[in-house]
Protein backbone atom coordinates (compact mmCIF):
# COMPACT_ATOMS: atom_id res chain seq x y z
CA UNK A 1 0.00 0.00 0.00
CA UNK A 2 1.21 3.50 -0.79
CA UNK A 3 2.55 5.66 2.01
CA UNK A 4 -0.25 7.87 3.26
CA UNK A 5 0.05 11.63 2.64
CA UNK A 6 -2.56 12.38 5.25
CA UNK A 7 -1.66 14.14 8.47
CA UNK A 8 -1.40 11.97 11.61
CA UNK A 9 -4.39 13.82 13.11
CA UNK A 10 -6.75 12.38 10.47
CA UNK A 11 -8.93 9.62 11.91
CA UNK A 12 -8.30 6.12 10.52
CA UNK A 13 -11.61 5.74 8.54
CA UNK A 14 -10.97 9.06 6.79
CA UNK A 15 -7.34 8.16 6.07
CA UNK A 16 -8.45 4.78 4.69
CA UNK A 17 -10.93 6.37 2.30
CA UNK A 18 -8.38 8.97 1.16
CA UNK A 19 -5.98 6.14 0.37
CA UNK A 20 -8.73 4.21 -1.44
CA UNK A 21 -9.52 7.20 -3.67
CA UNK A 22 -5.80 7.81 -4.25
CA UNK A 23 -5.50 4.34 -5.78
CA UNK A 24 -7.98 5.26 -8.54
CA UNK A 25 -6.48 6.32 -11.90
CA UNK A 26 -6.01 10.07 -12.31
CA UNK A 27 -6.74 10.84 -8.63
CA UNK A 28 -3.90 12.60 -6.83
CA UNK A 29 -3.59 13.08 -3.06
CA UNK A 30 -5.36 16.45 -3.08
CA UNK A 31 -8.28 15.19 -5.17
CA UNK A 32 -8.53 12.14 -2.89
CA UNK A 33 -8.81 14.42 0.16
CA UNK A 34 -11.37 16.64 -1.56
CA UNK A 35 -13.58 13.69 -2.53
CA UNK A 36 -13.35 12.19 0.96
CA UNK A 37 -14.37 15.41 2.68
CA UNK A 38 -17.18 15.80 0.17
CA UNK A 39 -18.46 12.36 1.19
CA UNK A 40 -18.23 13.32 4.88
CA UNK A 41 -20.54 16.26 4.21
CA UNK A 42 -22.94 14.12 2.15
CA UNK A 43 -26.26 12.97 3.75
CA UNK A 44 -26.00 9.42 5.11
CA UNK A 45 -28.59 8.03 2.64
CA UNK A 46 -26.66 9.38 -0.35
CA UNK A 47 -23.40 7.97 0.97
CA UNK A 48 -25.02 4.57 1.48
CA UNK A 49 -26.42 4.67 -2.05
CA UNK A 50 -22.92 5.45 -3.31
CA UNK A 51 -21.39 2.56 -1.33
CA UNK A 52 -24.20 0.27 -2.48
CA UNK A 53 -23.58 1.15 -6.12
CA UNK A 54 -19.91 0.14 -5.76
CA UNK A 55 -20.82 -3.12 -4.03
CA UNK A 56 -23.46 -3.91 -6.68
CA UNK A 57 -20.96 -3.19 -9.42
CA UNK A 58 -18.62 -5.86 -8.12
CA UNK A 59 -21.45 -8.34 -7.48
CA UNK A 60 -23.40 -8.03 -10.72
CA UNK A 61 -21.06 -6.88 -13.45
CA UNK A 62 -19.13 -9.50 -15.40
CA UNK A 63 -17.29 -9.66 -18.71
CA UNK A 64 -19.29 -10.95 -21.67
CA UNK A 65 -18.16 -14.49 -22.55
CA UNK A 66 -18.08 -13.62 -26.26
CA UNK A 67 -16.78 -10.06 -26.67
CA UNK A 68 -15.37 -9.30 -23.17
CA UNK A 69 -17.55 -6.19 -22.87
CA UNK A 70 -18.95 -5.15 -19.50
CA UNK A 71 -22.23 -7.02 -18.99
CA UNK A 72 -24.78 -8.06 -16.41
CA UNK A 73 -25.06 -11.56 -17.84
CA UNK A 74 -22.83 -14.09 -19.59
CA UNK A 75 -23.73 -12.50 -22.97
CA UNK A 76 -23.91 -8.72 -23.37
CA UNK A 77 -26.79 -6.86 -25.06
CA UNK A 78 -24.82 -6.34 -28.28
CA UNK A 79 -23.86 -10.01 -28.62
CA UNK A 80 -27.45 -11.17 -28.07
CA UNK A 81 -28.93 -8.59 -30.48
CA UNK A 82 -30.04 -10.58 -33.55
CA UNK A 83 -30.43 -7.41 -35.65
CA UNK A 84 -26.68 -6.75 -35.60
CA UNK A 85 -24.34 -7.81 -38.39
CA UNK A 86 -22.55 -11.00 -37.29
CA UNK A 87 -20.06 -10.91 -40.14
CA UNK A 88 -18.14 -7.87 -38.85
CA UNK A 89 -16.24 -7.47 -35.60
CA UNK A 90 -14.85 -4.13 -34.46
CA UNK A 91 -11.84 -4.61 -32.17
CA UNK A 92 -11.39 -1.88 -29.55
CA UNK A 93 -9.05 -1.30 -26.62
CA UNK A 94 -11.53 -0.57 -23.83
CA UNK A 95 -15.30 -0.84 -23.13
CA UNK A 96 -15.52 2.97 -23.25
CA UNK A 97 -14.54 2.83 -26.93
CA UNK A 98 -17.68 0.78 -27.64
CA UNK A 99 -19.80 3.57 -26.16
CA UNK A 100 -17.98 6.16 -28.31
CA UNK A 101 -18.50 4.16 -31.54
CA UNK A 102 -22.13 3.40 -30.68
CA UNK A 103 -22.70 7.14 -30.20
CA UNK A 104 -21.78 7.68 -33.85
CA UNK A 105 -24.74 5.41 -34.91
CA UNK A 106 -23.02 4.23 -38.09
CA UNK A 107 -21.79 0.78 -37.10
CA UNK A 108 -24.15 -2.17 -36.71
CA UNK A 109 -21.69 -5.06 -36.34
CA UNK A 110 -20.34 -6.79 -33.25
CA UNK A 111 -17.40 -5.81 -31.02
CA UNK A 112 -14.42 -7.39 -29.34
CA UNK A 113 -12.73 -5.66 -26.41
CA UNK A 114 -9.02 -6.30 -25.89
CA UNK A 115 -8.83 -4.70 -22.43
CA UNK A 116 -5.56 -3.00 -23.20
CA UNK A 117 -2.98 -2.53 -25.87
CA UNK A 118 0.50 -3.93 -26.49
CA UNK A 119 2.80 -1.72 -24.44
CA UNK A 120 6.28 -3.20 -24.07
CA UNK A 121 7.54 -0.43 -21.76
CA UNK A 122 4.68 -1.17 -19.37
CA UNK A 123 5.24 -4.92 -19.63
CA UNK A 124 1.94 -5.54 -21.45
CA UNK A 125 2.30 -8.15 -24.17
CA UNK A 126 -0.15 -9.94 -26.49
CA UNK A 127 -0.85 -12.62 -23.87
CA UNK A 128 -2.28 -9.98 -21.54
CA UNK A 129 -4.96 -9.03 -24.09
CA UNK A 130 -8.13 -10.88 -25.16
CA UNK A 131 -6.55 -12.00 -28.42
CA UNK A 132 -6.97 -15.74 -27.97
CA UNK A 133 -10.72 -15.15 -27.51
CA UNK A 134 -10.79 -13.10 -30.73
CA UNK A 135 -9.15 -15.93 -32.67
CA UNK A 136 -11.70 -18.36 -31.26
CA UNK A 137 -14.54 -16.19 -32.61
CA UNK A 138 -13.07 -16.27 -36.10
CA UNK A 139 -12.66 -20.04 -36.30
CA UNK A 140 -16.20 -20.90 -37.51
CA UNK A 141 -15.77 -18.77 -40.64
CA UNK A 142 -18.90 -16.63 -40.17
CA UNK A 143 -16.90 -13.41 -39.70
CA UNK A 144 -15.71 -11.83 -42.94
CA UNK A 145 -14.22 -8.57 -41.66
CA UNK A 146 -12.31 -7.48 -38.56
CA UNK A 147 -12.14 -3.69 -38.11
CA UNK A 148 -9.21 -2.77 -35.88
CA UNK A 149 -10.20 0.37 -33.97
CA UNK A 150 -7.28 0.71 -31.57
CA UNK A 151 -6.11 4.25 -30.82
CA UNK A 152 -4.03 5.91 -33.57
CA UNK A 153 -0.86 6.13 -31.46
CA UNK A 154 2.31 4.04 -31.49
CA UNK A 155 1.03 1.29 -29.21
CA UNK A 156 -2.38 1.19 -30.90
CA UNK A 157 -0.66 0.84 -34.29
CA UNK A 158 1.60 -1.92 -32.99
CA UNK A 159 -1.41 -3.80 -31.64
CA UNK A 160 -3.16 -3.41 -35.00
CA UNK A 161 -0.07 -4.77 -36.77
CA UNK A 162 0.05 -7.72 -34.38
CA UNK A 163 -3.64 -8.50 -34.96
CA UNK A 164 -3.13 -8.27 -38.71
CA UNK A 165 -0.27 -10.80 -38.51
CA UNK A 166 -2.30 -13.04 -36.20
CA UNK A 167 -5.40 -13.09 -38.40
CA UNK A 168 -3.44 -13.04 -41.65
CA UNK A 169 -3.51 -16.84 -42.21
CA UNK A 170 -7.32 -16.93 -41.81
CA UNK A 171 -9.64 -15.96 -44.67
CA UNK A 172 -10.79 -12.73 -42.97
CA UNK A 173 -10.42 -9.16 -44.23
CA UNK A 174 -8.60 -6.98 -41.68
CA UNK A 175 -9.28 -3.23 -41.92
CA UNK A 176 -8.13 -0.28 -39.86
CA UNK A 177 -10.04 2.90 -39.02
CA UNK A 178 -9.06 5.75 -41.36
CA UNK A 179 -6.60 8.25 -39.93
CA UNK A 180 -6.33 11.91 -40.78
CA UNK A 181 -7.19 15.41 -39.67
CA UNK A 182 -9.88 15.70 -37.00
CA UNK A 183 -12.88 17.96 -37.68
CA UNK A 184 -12.27 21.53 -36.56
CA UNK A 185 -8.47 21.23 -36.41
CA UNK A 186 -5.76 23.35 -38.09
CA UNK A 187 -3.40 21.83 -40.67
CA UNK A 188 -0.72 24.17 -39.30
CA UNK A 189 -0.66 22.25 -36.01
CA UNK A 190 -0.97 18.72 -37.41
CA UNK A 191 1.95 16.37 -36.75
CA UNK A 192 3.83 14.72 -39.61
CA UNK A 193 2.29 11.25 -39.27
CA UNK A 194 -1.28 12.61 -39.16
CA UNK A 195 -0.61 14.70 -42.27
CA UNK A 196 1.06 11.79 -44.04
CA UNK A 197 -1.88 9.48 -43.27
CA UNK A 198 -4.37 12.19 -44.32
CA UNK A 199 -2.59 12.61 -47.65
CA UNK A 200 -2.24 8.87 -48.23
CA UNK A 201 -5.93 8.30 -47.50
CA UNK A 202 -7.17 11.34 -49.45
CA UNK A 203 -10.52 10.93 -51.19
CA UNK A 204 -11.95 12.40 -54.37
CA UNK A 205 -14.54 15.12 -53.80
CA UNK A 206 -17.80 13.83 -55.17
Amino acid at each position, binding site marked *: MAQSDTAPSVTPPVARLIEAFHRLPGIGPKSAQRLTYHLIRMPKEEAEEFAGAIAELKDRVVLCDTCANISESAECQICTDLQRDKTRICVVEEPLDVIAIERARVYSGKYHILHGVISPVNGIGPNDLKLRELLERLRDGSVTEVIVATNPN*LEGEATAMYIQQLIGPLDVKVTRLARGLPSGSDIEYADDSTLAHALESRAEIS
Partner: protein
Amino acid sequence: MTTKRRPITYTTEGVVVRISNLGEADRIITLVTPIHGLVRGVAKASRKPGSKIGGHLDMLKHVSVSVRETSTLHGLSQASTLNGFRKLRDDLERFSRASYISEISEQFSVENGSNQPLFRLLLSVLEALETTTNTDMITRFFEMRLLQLSGFQPEMSRCVETGIELKPANHLYSAERGGLLSNQAKPVIETALLPASLNTIKLLRFLSKAKLMNAKVIKAGEEEKRQLSRILRAQIHYVLDRGLRSEAFMDEVRSKKTET
Protein backbone atom coordinates in the same frame (compact mmCIF):
# COMPACT_ATOMS: atom_id res chain seq x y z
CA MET B 1 7.48 37.54 3.80
CA THR B 2 8.22 34.73 1.41
CA THR B 3 8.11 35.35 -2.31
CA LYS B 4 7.13 32.70 -4.79
CA ARG B 5 9.80 31.74 -7.30
CA ARG B 6 8.72 32.66 -10.81
CA PRO B 7 8.23 29.52 -12.87
CA ILE B 8 10.97 28.88 -15.40
CA THR B 9 9.94 28.18 -18.97
CA TYR B 10 12.31 26.74 -21.53
CA THR B 11 12.15 24.99 -24.87
CA THR B 12 13.94 21.70 -25.31
CA GLU B 13 14.19 18.84 -27.73
CA GLY B 14 13.53 15.35 -26.42
CA VAL B 15 12.45 11.83 -27.24
CA VAL B 16 9.14 10.63 -25.74
CA VAL B 17 9.84 7.43 -23.81
CA ARG B 18 6.71 6.97 -21.69
CA ILE B 19 3.09 8.09 -21.72
CA SER B 20 0.37 7.61 -19.15
CA ASN B 21 -3.14 8.99 -18.98
CA LEU B 22 -4.12 11.54 -16.37
CA GLY B 23 -7.64 12.62 -15.49
CA GLU B 24 -10.25 13.13 -18.21
CA ALA B 25 -8.13 14.11 -21.19
CA ASP B 26 -4.57 14.84 -20.03
CA ARG B 27 -1.41 12.79 -20.41
CA ILE B 28 1.79 12.57 -18.42
CA ILE B 29 4.65 12.56 -20.90
CA THR B 30 8.19 11.46 -20.06
CA LEU B 31 10.99 12.68 -22.31
CA VAL B 32 14.71 12.01 -22.45
CA THR B 33 16.30 15.40 -23.16
CA PRO B 34 19.96 16.39 -23.73
CA ILE B 35 20.27 19.18 -21.10
CA HIS B 36 17.54 18.55 -18.55
CA GLY B 37 17.79 14.76 -18.44
CA LEU B 38 14.47 13.05 -17.79
CA VAL B 39 11.57 15.52 -18.03
CA ARG B 40 8.08 14.57 -16.84
CA GLY B 41 5.24 16.90 -17.64
CA VAL B 42 1.52 17.16 -18.20
CA ALA B 43 0.20 17.74 -21.70
CA LYS B 44 -3.22 19.22 -20.99
CA ALA B 45 -6.16 17.94 -23.06
CA SER B 46 -3.73 16.06 -25.32
CA ARG B 47 -6.09 13.06 -25.61
CA LYS B 48 -8.76 15.14 -27.32
CA PRO B 49 -8.89 14.81 -31.11
CA GLY B 50 -8.56 18.56 -31.62
CA SER B 51 -5.43 18.88 -29.46
CA LYS B 52 -2.61 20.84 -31.09
CA ILE B 53 0.09 18.90 -29.24
CA GLY B 54 -1.43 15.42 -28.78
CA GLY B 55 -0.27 14.12 -32.16
CA HIS B 56 3.28 15.33 -31.60
CA LEU B 57 3.73 13.91 -28.11
CA ASP B 58 3.48 10.24 -29.04
CA MET B 59 5.90 7.48 -28.01
CA LEU B 60 9.31 7.41 -29.70
CA LYS B 61 8.93 10.79 -31.38
CA HIS B 62 11.77 13.29 -31.41
CA VAL B 63 10.06 16.55 -30.54
CA SER B 64 10.63 20.15 -29.59
CA VAL B 65 8.51 21.16 -26.62
CA SER B 66 8.06 24.10 -24.29
CA VAL B 67 8.39 23.17 -20.60
CA ARG B 68 7.03 25.26 -17.75
CA GLU B 69 8.73 24.09 -14.57
CA THR B 70 6.65 23.71 -11.42
CA SER B 71 7.39 22.17 -8.05
CA THR B 72 5.51 19.00 -9.05
CA LEU B 73 4.76 17.94 -12.63
CA HIS B 74 5.88 20.39 -15.28
CA GLY B 75 3.52 21.78 -17.91
CA LEU B 76 4.16 20.92 -21.56
CA SER B 77 2.98 23.02 -24.50
CA GLN B 78 3.91 24.12 -28.04
CA ALA B 79 5.13 20.71 -29.16
CA SER B 80 6.28 20.03 -32.69
CA THR B 81 7.72 16.89 -34.26
CA LEU B 82 11.38 16.95 -35.34
CA ASN B 83 11.46 13.29 -36.38
CA GLY B 84 8.46 10.97 -36.14
CA PHE B 85 10.52 7.79 -36.89
CA ARG B 86 7.68 6.57 -39.09
CA LYS B 87 9.40 3.34 -40.11
CA LEU B 88 9.58 2.25 -36.47
CA ARG B 89 5.77 2.42 -36.48
CA ASP B 90 5.24 0.26 -39.53
CA ASP B 91 7.24 -2.78 -38.46
CA LEU B 92 6.62 -4.85 -35.35
CA GLU B 93 10.25 -5.93 -34.95
CA ARG B 94 11.64 -2.40 -35.23
CA PHE B 95 8.93 -1.21 -32.82
CA SER B 96 9.85 -3.87 -30.24
CA ARG B 97 13.57 -2.96 -30.46
CA ALA B 98 12.86 0.76 -30.23
CA SER B 99 10.63 0.20 -27.18
CA TYR B 100 13.46 -1.74 -25.48
CA ILE B 101 15.96 0.99 -26.31
CA SER B 102 13.68 3.74 -25.05
CA GLU B 103 13.04 1.85 -21.80
CA ILE B 104 16.78 1.46 -21.12
CA SER B 105 17.35 5.14 -21.96
CA GLU B 106 14.69 6.12 -19.44
CA GLN B 107 16.22 3.86 -16.78
CA PHE B 108 19.71 5.31 -17.30
CA SER B 109 18.47 8.93 -17.22
CA VAL B 110 17.80 11.09 -14.18
CA GLU B 111 15.80 14.28 -13.76
CA ASN B 112 17.93 17.42 -14.15
CA GLY B 113 20.88 15.26 -15.12
CA SER B 114 22.29 16.59 -18.38
CA ASN B 115 23.39 13.71 -20.59
CA GLN B 116 24.02 14.87 -24.14
CA PRO B 117 25.98 11.75 -25.22
CA LEU B 118 23.12 9.45 -24.16
CA PHE B 119 20.58 11.61 -25.98
CA ARG B 120 22.67 11.69 -29.18
CA LEU B 121 23.18 7.92 -28.93
CA LEU B 122 19.43 7.35 -28.54
CA LEU B 123 18.66 9.51 -31.57
CA SER B 124 21.30 7.94 -33.79
CA VAL B 125 20.28 4.39 -32.84
CA LEU B 126 16.58 5.09 -33.48
CA GLU B 127 17.51 6.53 -36.87
CA ALA B 128 19.63 3.46 -37.64
CA LEU B 129 16.81 1.11 -36.58
CA GLU B 130 14.57 2.71 -39.19
CA THR B 131 16.78 1.70 -42.07
CA THR B 132 18.91 -1.29 -41.08
CA THR B 133 18.01 -4.93 -41.45
CA ASN B 134 20.63 -5.80 -38.82
CA THR B 135 18.41 -4.71 -35.90
CA ASP B 136 20.01 -7.27 -33.59
CA MET B 137 23.51 -5.82 -33.85
CA ILE B 138 22.25 -2.22 -33.60
CA THR B 139 20.60 -3.17 -30.31
CA ARG B 140 23.86 -4.73 -29.07
CA PHE B 141 25.77 -1.62 -30.17
CA PHE B 142 23.37 0.53 -28.14
CA GLU B 143 23.74 -1.65 -25.04
CA MET B 144 27.53 -1.61 -25.23
CA ARG B 145 27.79 2.14 -25.88
CA LEU B 146 25.31 2.89 -23.08
CA LEU B 147 27.36 0.84 -20.61
CA GLN B 148 30.49 2.70 -21.71
CA LEU B 149 28.81 6.12 -21.37
CA SER B 150 27.58 5.22 -17.91
CA GLY B 151 30.99 4.06 -16.71
CA PHE B 152 30.23 0.34 -16.77
CA GLN B 153 32.29 -0.78 -19.76
CA PRO B 154 32.86 -4.52 -19.49
CA GLU B 155 36.47 -5.57 -18.88
CA MET B 156 37.49 -7.60 -21.91
CA SER B 157 41.28 -7.78 -21.94
CA ARG B 158 42.17 -8.98 -18.41
CA CYS B 159 40.62 -11.59 -16.16
CA VAL B 160 38.45 -9.82 -13.56
CA GLU B 161 39.46 -12.45 -10.97
CA THR B 162 43.21 -12.72 -11.39
CA GLY B 163 44.08 -9.58 -13.39
CA ILE B 164 46.06 -11.68 -15.87
CA GLU B 165 45.84 -10.82 -19.55
CA LEU B 166 43.41 -13.16 -21.29
CA LYS B 167 44.71 -15.55 -23.94
CA PRO B 168 42.72 -15.95 -27.17
CA ALA B 169 40.36 -18.75 -26.08
CA ASN B 170 36.86 -19.39 -24.83
CA HIS B 171 36.30 -17.74 -21.44
CA LEU B 172 33.44 -16.88 -19.08
CA TYR B 173 31.64 -13.63 -18.29
CA SER B 174 30.58 -12.39 -14.87
CA ALA B 175 28.10 -9.49 -14.78
CA GLU B 176 28.68 -9.14 -11.06
CA ARG B 177 32.42 -8.64 -11.58
CA GLY B 178 31.85 -6.60 -14.74
CA GLY B 179 33.96 -8.51 -17.22
CA LEU B 180 35.55 -11.65 -18.56
CA LEU B 181 36.86 -14.35 -16.32
CA SER B 182 39.66 -16.65 -17.47
CA ASN B 183 38.58 -20.22 -18.01
CA GLN B 184 41.50 -21.16 -15.68
CA ALA B 185 40.34 -18.90 -12.83
CA LYS B 186 38.50 -20.21 -9.82
CA PRO B 187 36.21 -17.41 -8.59
CA VAL B 188 36.45 -16.82 -4.85
CA ILE B 189 32.82 -15.66 -4.66
CA GLU B 190 30.23 -17.86 -6.30
CA THR B 191 28.84 -15.89 -9.20
CA ALA B 192 26.63 -16.54 -12.22
CA LEU B 193 28.97 -17.17 -15.12
CA LEU B 194 27.98 -16.92 -18.77
CA PRO B 195 29.81 -18.65 -21.58
CA ALA B 196 31.82 -16.34 -23.86
CA SER B 197 33.34 -18.05 -26.89
CA LEU B 198 36.41 -16.62 -28.63
CA ASN B 199 34.21 -15.24 -31.42
CA THR B 200 31.82 -13.65 -28.93
CA ILE B 201 34.77 -12.00 -27.16
CA LYS B 202 36.01 -10.67 -30.51
CA LEU B 203 32.54 -9.26 -31.17
CA LEU B 204 32.40 -7.65 -27.73
CA ARG B 205 35.78 -5.98 -28.33
CA PHE B 206 34.77 -4.87 -31.80
CA LEU B 207 31.47 -3.40 -30.55
CA SER B 208 33.29 -1.46 -27.85
CA LYS B 209 35.30 0.41 -30.49
CA ALA B 210 33.04 0.30 -33.55
CA LYS B 211 31.11 3.20 -34.99
CA LEU B 212 27.39 2.84 -35.61
CA MET B 213 27.91 2.53 -39.38
CA ASN B 214 30.28 -0.42 -38.77
CA ALA B 215 27.91 -2.10 -36.33
CA LYS B 216 25.24 -2.19 -39.03
CA VAL B 217 27.31 -4.55 -41.15
CA ILE B 218 28.57 -6.97 -38.48
CA LYS B 219 27.70 -10.56 -39.31
CA ALA B 220 27.64 -13.18 -36.57
CA GLY B 221 26.46 -16.74 -36.06
CA GLU B 222 23.32 -17.49 -34.05
CA GLU B 223 25.29 -18.86 -31.07
CA GLU B 224 27.55 -15.78 -30.92
CA LYS B 225 24.52 -13.49 -31.15
CA ARG B 226 22.83 -15.38 -28.32
CA GLN B 227 25.93 -15.19 -26.10
CA LEU B 228 26.43 -11.50 -26.87
CA SER B 229 22.83 -10.71 -26.03
CA ARG B 230 22.92 -12.65 -22.76
CA ILE B 231 26.19 -11.02 -21.66
CA LEU B 232 25.16 -7.42 -22.38
CA ARG B 233 21.67 -7.87 -20.97
CA ALA B 234 23.03 -9.50 -17.82
CA GLN B 235 25.36 -6.53 -17.37
CA ILE B 236 22.52 -4.03 -17.82
CA HIS B 237 20.31 -5.98 -15.37
CA TYR B 238 23.15 -5.94 -12.86
CA VAL B 239 23.67 -2.18 -13.22
CA LEU B 240 19.93 -1.43 -12.98
CA ASP B 241 19.35 -4.14 -10.36
CA ARG B 242 16.26 -5.23 -12.31
CA GLY B 243 15.13 -6.64 -15.63
CA LEU B 244 13.41 -4.67 -18.37
CA ARG B 245 9.70 -4.98 -19.09
CA SER B 246 10.04 -4.65 -22.85
CA GLU B 247 12.40 -7.64 -23.18
CA ALA B 248 9.64 -10.27 -23.22
CA PHE B 249 7.84 -8.72 -26.19
CA MET B 250 11.10 -8.12 -28.08
CA ASP B 251 12.07 -11.78 -27.60
CA GLU B 252 8.62 -12.97 -28.68
CA VAL B 253 8.70 -10.93 -31.90
CA ARG B 254 12.26 -12.09 -32.60
CA SER B 255 11.44 -15.76 -32.10
CA LYS B 256 8.39 -15.48 -34.38
CA LYS B 257 10.58 -13.87 -37.03
CA THR B 258 13.14 -16.68 -36.70
CA GLU B 259 10.36 -19.30 -37.04
CA THR B 260 9.19 -17.78 -40.32
